[in-house]
C-alpha cells in the first residue's frame, strides 16, 4: 500500500502570522505522497483533534505531518491523537514552523515554511510503525551498602511494597555510618533494628557482588556470602556504597599524635575521661580538594562543639567556606558568633611539628601578612574518596565513574541518581561529596523511580525501535563496545548465527550504534539513514 | 703487528677498545687519521656497521684499513641489512683478509636511520648470529656444507645493563653467553651500580667471559636529555645532567671527558669489569684525552 501523507497546518491561534497559509497549502498539496492538507487555528485543542481524527479516517491517511509548533512541545500529544485514530504513533513527523520558522525570522517566511514541511513530509513517507509491548519484570531490588543511605533506601523501598535485599560487605549493618558532616540527630541503631525487623528486607552481611548480567527488570547478580555463591534475580539495583576519607598530610606528619581526623576529634569530644583539653585547635580544609562540602560541614560542627565543650581557641584555615545549604549557613553564623576565627588563605599552610605542638604558617589573604599559629591540636584536611570496591563494582556492573572515581556525578545532563544504564541507581556519598541532606532527598527520588519502573510488574516499552538487521550484521561487536547504555549483546538467531541483539528495555534510542555500525546494519526507526537523507535531499530540490 | 684481541682478552687485566665509525663516502682519509691516532693506544678498534641505520662506508672496509695500518680490528655485524647468505659470505671474506674478531649484534631498526623506506632483513637475530659464527668456526656453513678453508673468529656481543625492565634483557644475554662469546661490550653505562648488577649476573652464567663497559662521554645537559629520549637503551641519571648543566659555557666537552674518565677510573679501581669500550662518536681525536685523564696511557 502506498503511503498517504496528511498534512495539518496550524497557526497556533494566530501566533504564526507571517506565513501566507493559502499559498503554502497549495504548494504542499502538490508534494508527492500528500493526500490532503488541512488548515486549523488550534490543532491541539479538542476541535482540532477531532478534525484530525475525522480527516485521518475519511482520507485513509497513514502518515501524518503537523506543521505548527516545536515537536518538543506537542509531539507527544499528537502521537496520542494518532494512536486514538488507530495509527501507530511513530508514523508522525512535525514541521517546526513556529519556533524555528515564524518566530525566528522577520517578514514573510512562507517559502521557508514550505521547505520545512517538505522535509517533514519526505521523512514521514518513509516512517515505519513501532509497536509497544509489556515486558514482565522482576520486582525485587538489590541495595548495595550498609550505611545510612543504604538502610534508608531499603526501608523506603520496603514501605512501597518492593522486596529488597540489603547487601553489605561488613559483618554488621551501620558499622561505617560515622558521617563526616554529622548525622543530624539520626539514630542509626534504631534504623538498623527497624531494617532487621522488616520482613520485606533480606539482609546479607559479609557479602559481596561477584558478577552481574542482564538488564533492567531482569538483572542476575551472583553474590558470595560465607564461602558460598548464590544467584539472585533483581529488577533494579541501588548502589549506596558511600565514601571514605583520607588525611591530606605529608607522610612524616602522619604519625604526629597532635594531628587528627574529624572522626578522632569527635571521639575525643565524647570521651568523658579525656585528661587534657586542647586549648588551641586549628582546622584545615579546601586546599587539596575543592569539593569540600562535607569537610566544611564537619569543621563547622566540630569547631562549634569544641568551642562550647572545651572553650578552646579555634582557628580555621581554608581557601573558602562553602555553605550551600541553610544548615551550613546557620552553623557558619553560629561558629563566628561564638568566636571561631576563620582565616582565608590561597596557599596551603605549612605544617610542622613543634615541641609537642603543631605549628601552622599561613598567609591570610585579607590581613595580607604571615600568620604563625602554634596549636595543641590540628584537625587535618581530609580528602573524600569513593569507598573501597567502588571501582570493582562499577566494572562488574559496567557503569562509568567520573574523574574522581565517584559514580557519574559530573554529567549534569543525566538524572542525578540514575546511571547511564537503566535500572541502576545511586544514592548518597558514592556519587560524590554529598552531605546527609542530599542523601535524604536522593532516597525518595530513587525509590520513586524504582517504584515507577517495577511496581506494576511490567514495563511498557517499544519493540525493536532500534534493531540490528540480522542479514547485514557481521557481529563485529563495534556497537556493543560503543553503546553508552550497555544495551547490546551478542545473541544467536534461530539459524545459530551470532548477531548484535539490542535490548528494548535497556536501549535509550540515541543512535550512536546506528552511526558507527560498519555494516550499516542498525535500523533506528525514525532516524534511519533514509529518513535523515530524505530531509537533506529537499535542499537540492529547492 | 698488533696483538690478536683474543690474546689480549686472555692476558691483559684491563682491556681498552675504541669505536671507529666509518664516514659517508669513499674518502677514507679521516678514518685513516683516527686509526693512526688510536691504534697503539687501545687494544682493539671496533668498526660500526651502518650505525644507527645510517648508510655509510662499510665496516669491512674500515676493518681492512685498520689491519693495513697495523691496528687490531673488530668487525661489527648487524642482522639488519643482510640475510644469512650475505652474512656468511662477508665473514668468510673478512677472515680471509686477516680480520679475526667479530662483534655480533641485532642492529638498530631501519626506522631510526636515513633510509626509512628500506626493507629491513633480520633474517637472523643476534643469538642466532653467534651460533652461525660458531658453525662457520667448525668448518661448515649453516646449511651443513663443508667449507674449503674454515675460519676462527673471536666472538663478542653487546648488552644493555640499564634496560627497563631488565629481566627479559638478562634472559637474552644469558642465551648469548650460552651460545659462546669471549667478550661482552655494554651499551653506554652511567650508573656504576647498574654495571655491577649486570657483571654479577654475567659472572653467574659464564665466569670466563670478559666484560667491557660502554663509555660514551656526554658533553652537555641538552645532549644528555636528547640521548635519554632518543637513544635506545641509554639512561643518564639526573645528577649527571645537573653536573653537566653547571659546567661553564664552552667547557662541556672537557666536563664530559672528566666524567667519563672518572667512571673509567672507578671501574678499574673497583675491578667492576674487565675493561672499557670508548665510543666518542664524531670526536674520535679526543679519545686519547680520556685515556690520559683516566690513567690508561
Amino acid at each position, binding site marked *: 500500500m502506498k503511503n498517504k501523507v496528511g498534512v495539518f497546518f496550524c497557526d497556533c491561534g494566530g501566533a504564526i502570522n507571517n506565513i501566507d497559509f493559502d499559498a503554502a497549502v497549495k504548494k504542499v498539496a502538490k508534494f508527492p505522497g500528500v493526500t490532503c492538507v488541512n488548515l486549523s487555528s488550534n490543532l491541539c485543542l479538542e476541535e482540532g483533534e477531532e478534525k484530525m481524527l475525522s480527516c485521518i479516517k475519511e482520507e485513509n491517511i497513514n502518515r501524518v505531518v503537523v506543521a505548527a509548533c516545536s515537536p518538543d512541545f506537542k509531539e507527544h500529544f499528537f502521537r496520542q491523537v494518532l494512536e486514538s485514530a488507530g495509527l501507530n504513533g511513530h508514523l508522525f513527523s512535525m514541521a517546526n514552523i513556529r519556533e524555528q520558522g515564524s518566530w525566528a525570522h522577520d517578514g514573510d517566511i512562507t517559502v521557508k515554511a514550505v521547505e520545512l514541511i517538505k522535509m517533514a513530509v519526505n521523512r514521514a513517507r518513509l516512517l515505519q510503525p513501532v509497536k509497544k509491548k509489556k515486558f514482565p519484570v522482576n520486582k525485587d531490588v538489590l541495595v548495595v551498602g550498609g550505611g545510612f543511605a543504604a538502610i534508608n533506601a531499603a526501608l523506603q523501598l520496603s514501605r512501597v511494597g518492593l522486596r529488597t535485599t540489603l547487601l553489605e560487605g561488613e559483618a554488621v549493618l551501620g558499622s561505617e555510618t560515622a558521617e563526616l558532616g554529622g548525622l543530624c540527630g539520626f539514630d542509626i541503631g534504631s534504623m538498623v533494628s527497624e531494617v532487621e525487623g522488616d520482613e520485606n528486607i533480606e539482609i546479607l552481611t559479609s557479602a559481596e557482588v561477584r558478577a552481574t548480567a542482564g538488564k533492567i527488570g531482569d538483572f542476575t547478580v551472583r553474590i558470595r556470602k560465607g564461602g558460598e555463591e548464590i544467584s539472585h534475580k533483581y529488577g533494579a539495583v541501588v548502589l549506596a556504597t558511600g565514601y571514605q576519607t583520607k588525611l591530606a598530610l605529608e607522610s612524616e606528619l602522619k604519625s604526629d599524635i597532635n594531628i587528627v581526623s574529624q572522626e578522632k576529634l569527635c571521639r575525643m569530644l565524647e570521651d568523658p575521661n579525656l585528661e587534657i583539653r586542647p586549648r588551641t585547635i586549628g582546622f584545615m580544609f579546601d586546599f587539596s580538594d575543592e569539593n569540600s562540602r562535607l569537610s566544611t560541614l564537619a569543621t563547622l560542627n566540630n569547631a562549634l562543639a569544641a568551642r562550647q565543650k572545651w572553650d578552646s581557641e579555634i582557628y580555621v584555615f581554608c581557601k573558602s567556606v562553602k555553605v550551600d545549604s541553610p544548615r551550613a549557613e546557620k552553623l557558619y553564623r553560629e561558629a563566628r558568633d561564638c568566636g571561631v576565627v576563620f582565616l582565608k588563605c590561597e596557599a596551603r599552610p605549612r605544617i610542622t611539628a613543634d615541641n609537642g605542638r603543631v605549628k601552622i604558617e599561613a598567609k591570610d589573604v585579607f590581613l595580607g601578612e604571615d600568620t604563625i599559629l602554634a596549636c595543641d591540636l590540628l584537625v587535618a584536611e581530609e580528602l573524600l574518596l569513593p569507598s573501597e570496591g567502588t571501582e570493582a563494582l562499577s566494572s562488574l556492573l559496567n557503569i562509568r565513574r567520573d574523574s574522581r572515581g565517584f559514580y557519574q556525578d*559530573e554529567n549534569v*545532563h543525566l538524572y542525578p541518581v540514575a546511571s547511564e544504564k537503566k535500572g541502576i541507581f545511586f544514592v548518597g556519598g558514592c556519587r560524590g561529596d554529598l552531605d546527609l541532606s542530599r542523601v535524604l532527598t536522593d532516597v525518595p527520588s530513587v525509590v520513586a523511580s524504582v517504584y515507577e519502573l517495577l511496581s506494576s510488574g511490567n514495563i511498557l516499552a517499544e519493540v525493536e525501535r532500534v534493531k540490528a538487521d540480522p542479514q547485514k550484521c557481521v557481529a563485529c561487536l563495534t556497537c556493543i563496545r560503543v553503546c553508552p547504555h550497555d544495551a547490546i549483546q551478542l545473541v544467536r538467531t534461530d539459524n545459530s548465527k551470532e548477531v548484535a541483539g539490542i535490548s528494548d528495555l535497556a536501549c535509550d534510542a540515541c*543512535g550512536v550504534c546506528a552511526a558507527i555500525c560498519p555494516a550499516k546494519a542498525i535500523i533506528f526507526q525514525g532516524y534511519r539513514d533514509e529518513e*535523515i*537523507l530524505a530531509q537533506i535531499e529537499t535542499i537540492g530540490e529547492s | 703487528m698488533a696483538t690478536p684481541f683474543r690474546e689480549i682478552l686472555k692476558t691483559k687485566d684491563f682491556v681498552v677498545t675504541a669505536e671507529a665509525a666509518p664516514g659517508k663516502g669513499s674518502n677514507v682519509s679521516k678514518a685513516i687519521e683516527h686509526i693512526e691516532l688510536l691504534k697503539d693506544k687501545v687494544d682493539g678498534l671496533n668498526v660500526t656497521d651502518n650505525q644507527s641505520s645510517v648508510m655509510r662506508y662499510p665496516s669491512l672496509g674500515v676493518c681492512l684499513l685498520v689491519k693495513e695500518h697495523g691496528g687490531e680490528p673488530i668487525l661489527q655485524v648487524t642482522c639488519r641489512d643482510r640475510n644469512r647468505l650475505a652474512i656468511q659470505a662477508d665473514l668468510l671474506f673478512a677472515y680471509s683478509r686477516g680480520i679475526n674478531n667479530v662483534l655480533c649484534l641485532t642492529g638498530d631498526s631501519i626506522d631510526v636511520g636515513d633510509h626509512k623506506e628500506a626493507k629491513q632483513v633480520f633474517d637472523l637475530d643476534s643469538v642466532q648470529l653467534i651460533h652461525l659464527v660458531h658453525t662457520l668456526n667448525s668448518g661448515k656453513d649453516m646449511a651443513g656444507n663443508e667449507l674449503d678453508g674454515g675460519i676462527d673468529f673471536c666472538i663478542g656481543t653487546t648488552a644493555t645493563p640499564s634496560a627497563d625492565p631488565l629481566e627479559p634483557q638478562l634472559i637474552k644475554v644469558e642465551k648469548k653467553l650460552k651460545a659462546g662469546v669471549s667478550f661482552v661490550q655494554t651499551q653506554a653505562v652511567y650508573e656504576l651500580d647498574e654495571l655491577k648488577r649486570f657483571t654479577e649476573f654475567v659472572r653467574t652464567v659464564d665466569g670466563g667471559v670478559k666484560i667491557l663497559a660502554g663509555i660514551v662521554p656526554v658533553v652537555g645537559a641538552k645532549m644528555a636529555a636528547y640521548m635519554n629520549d632518543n637513544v635506545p637503551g641509554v639512561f643518564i641519571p639526573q645528577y649527571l645532567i645537573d653536573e653537566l648543566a653547571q659546567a661553564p659555557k664552552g667547557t662541556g666537552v672537557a666536563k664530559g671527558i672528566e666524567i667519563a674518565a672518572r667512571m673509567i677510573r672507578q671501574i678499574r679501581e673497583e675491578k667492576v669489569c674487565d675493561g672499557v669500550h670508548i665510543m666518542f662518536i664524531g670526536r674520535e681525536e679526543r679519545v686519547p684525552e680520556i685515556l690520559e685523564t683516566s690513567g690508561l696511557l
Partner: protein
Amino acid sequence: MNKCIVAFCCEHSAYPAADLAGKLRLHYPESLRIIRVPCAGRVDVIHILKAFENGAVAVLVLGCEDGACHHITGNTRAKERVEYCNMLLKEIEADGSPVAMFNLSPNEPHKFVRAVNEITKRIKEPGR
C-alpha cells in the same frame, strides 16, 4: 539557488536552544535547515557529505556540552566525525564548505545563534 546551511541538532540541547532562540526572536539566517537528531552521535559522515552534495554551503553539528552528553560519548564521537569530514573535504580542495561542531546547553539560544553566525563567516565563495 538558496544557499542552505544544514544544522544537525541534538534534541537534548541544540534543538531546544533553537526553539528558545525563536521564542526570544533572536534572528539567524533563513537559509538554516535544522534536522533534529536524538543525539549528535547519531550524525554520520555520509549525512554531512550528502548535505553538501545536495547543495548545502555549510554543515553544523550541534550537541551537548562536553561531559554533559545525555548519551555519554555521543558528542565526542560527533566531534571526531566532524573533523574527519573536514579532512575529507580538504582532500578534494572543498574546504571552503565548512563543517563545524559546537557544544551548547538547551538554555543557550545566544550560543546557538553565534554558532550559526560563526559558520556563516567561514563559508568561502568559490574561486576566492
